[in-house]
């Protein structure tokens, strides 16, 4: 308990002289890292807490290496950017998503290194940030334990495998699910350097960018991401991603691949 407080004090001392701008609102979750993260992420932009940013997760963190989170701000008009943040993770930001032609919705799984607030922060076209979230109790070690595929030793055999599917939605949008095989090494495990997916974009058949995101190693091993994009029902979607070693990943989601579901690989 003492160490985070000391760390927080140290960070505040470091940051205090640089802070000339807006003071973020008091944190309803009482997180020791709120002020520091708010200054770093939001700068001088206005910030307020808003329950219309719906951050959903299970009642129990059963697996601290893969904790499912959904940020859904479809009830808010004009969202241009979404950040998924776990205050007390050593790598606090998991995803920074720009839904260009997509609903302000993202679902994924993250690592939890200890009990922490998990938040969604969405930025409006006006520049204002709206934030929501809650505390999650979790066993430690989500960021500092080696990935399962490193322990098994087969990560390289599956690197680059991408699975996914597209579903039409009643409102004309399309639900895209993507899952990558990647160790997502945090760099916090002895003798394993940082190595993770760092960029992902979804493009429609006409080359129009539907959404893109930056990704950090606090996203779970074998990242799984769900998005809701605007595109014609029969259009092929293309997915492009890159990891921190500069390896490129490409996938194509064609309507023909949607169904029927194959039983295996």
């Amino acid at each position: 308990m003492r160490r985070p407080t000391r760390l927080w004090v140290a960070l505040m001392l470091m940051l205090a002289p640089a802070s000339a701008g807006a003071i973020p609102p008091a944190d309803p979750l009482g997180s020791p890292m709120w002020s520091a993260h708010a200054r770093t992420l939001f700068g001088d932009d206005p910030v307020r807490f808003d329950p219309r940013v719906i951050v959903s997760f299970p009642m129990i963190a059963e697996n601290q290496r893969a904790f499912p989170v959904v940020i859904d701000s479809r009830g808010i008009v004009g969202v241009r950017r979404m950040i998924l943040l776990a205050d007390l993770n050593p790598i606090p930001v998991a995803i920074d998503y720009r839904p260009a032609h997509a609903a302000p919705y993202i679902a994924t799984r993250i690592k939890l290194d200890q009990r922490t607030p998990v938040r969604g922060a969405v930025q409006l076209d006006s520049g204002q940030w709206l934030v929501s979230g809650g505390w999650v109790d979790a066993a430690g070690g989500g960021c500092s334990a080696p990935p399962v595929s490193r322990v098994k030793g087969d990560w390289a055999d599956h690197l680059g495998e991408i699975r996914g599917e597209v579903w039409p939605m009643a409102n004309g949008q399309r639900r895209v699910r993507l899952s990558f095989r990647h160790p997502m090494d945090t760099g916090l495990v002895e003798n394993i350097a940082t190595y993770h997916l760092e960029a992902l974009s979804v493009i429609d058949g006409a080359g129009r960018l539907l959404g893109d995101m930056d990704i950090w190693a606090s996203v779970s091993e074998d990242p799984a991401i769900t998005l809701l994009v605007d595109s014609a029902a029969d259009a092929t979607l293309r997915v492009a991603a890159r990891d921190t070693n500069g390896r490129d990943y490409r996938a194509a989601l064609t309507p023909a691949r949607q169904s029927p579901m194959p039983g295996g690989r």
Partner: protein
Amino acid sequence: MILSRRAMLGGMASLAAAPARAADYVITPVVIGDGIWMVRGADEPIESRNGGAIANIAIIATPAGTVLWECGPSLRYARALRQVAERLTGARIVRVYVSHLHPDHGMGLAAFDPAIVAALPGTIAALAAQGQGYADGMYRLLGDWMRGTDLILPGRAIMTAQEDFGGRALRLLALSGHSSADLALLDERTGMLLGGDLVFNDRAPSTPTAVLPAWRASLDQLQVLPHGALLPGHGPIDPAGIAAIAQTGDWLNWLEGALTQAVRDGLDMVEAGNLPIPDRFAQMAVARYEMQRSVSHLYPGLEASLLPRIDVKSAP
């Protein structure tokens, strides 16, 4: 005479030295047959308010001494259980069975001589590999309840299908599916079947180490095994011994089907964990909690088998 007085003094000294909170575990044996009692666990998650005492335990009196089925989550619990059981039967504990590796069932075995603690070989191997992780988790969840509890491995690997205690025969069934090795026990005298965590009753099954096809096969075996009443691993006793087996199978089939359909429908894990639970499971304790845990256990595997490959070779 001298020996027994020394034993008695020793016993009193150890009572006096026991931590004051040892009495906090309320251990109330309820008779469920001739010379067999159950100690009901709380139908709850492992939490500090219940000290982890959530698994059902049985005490069996035999001519050769007292037999325990499971020994609870902590050293403190197991010491209290031993006192209660030996007072109840008037005979020393000669055997402790641990049904499988999960800590709510057997972490208390440190209170006994490992030579009298028996488990399936697969359970002993799994405890050696994963037991410390479970111990860490229990300390995190339960704090002081766990004080003094160390991971100790059972000293006897069960290699026979039966043990006889002075004429009271106990059938030992080596099964699996809830974990890699699950023991069930049939008390020949009463027909009482002790199902371990292969069988839950009005308490949602937990699946952290489940292999569903093996679990179903084990349930099928228990279903056809002639037996009387059944004490499940969690939840109330099943007097006819069949309904709880059927309910456990029903839940597992529903769970797997619902999660498979959720992957096919494009749901994410959070959404899958909020799917409606059928009304027929309305009386089940901790249904939503276990369902969301099961999503965590089973969903990634279902995605890996059901979602098609979409990667294409990237241009150089």
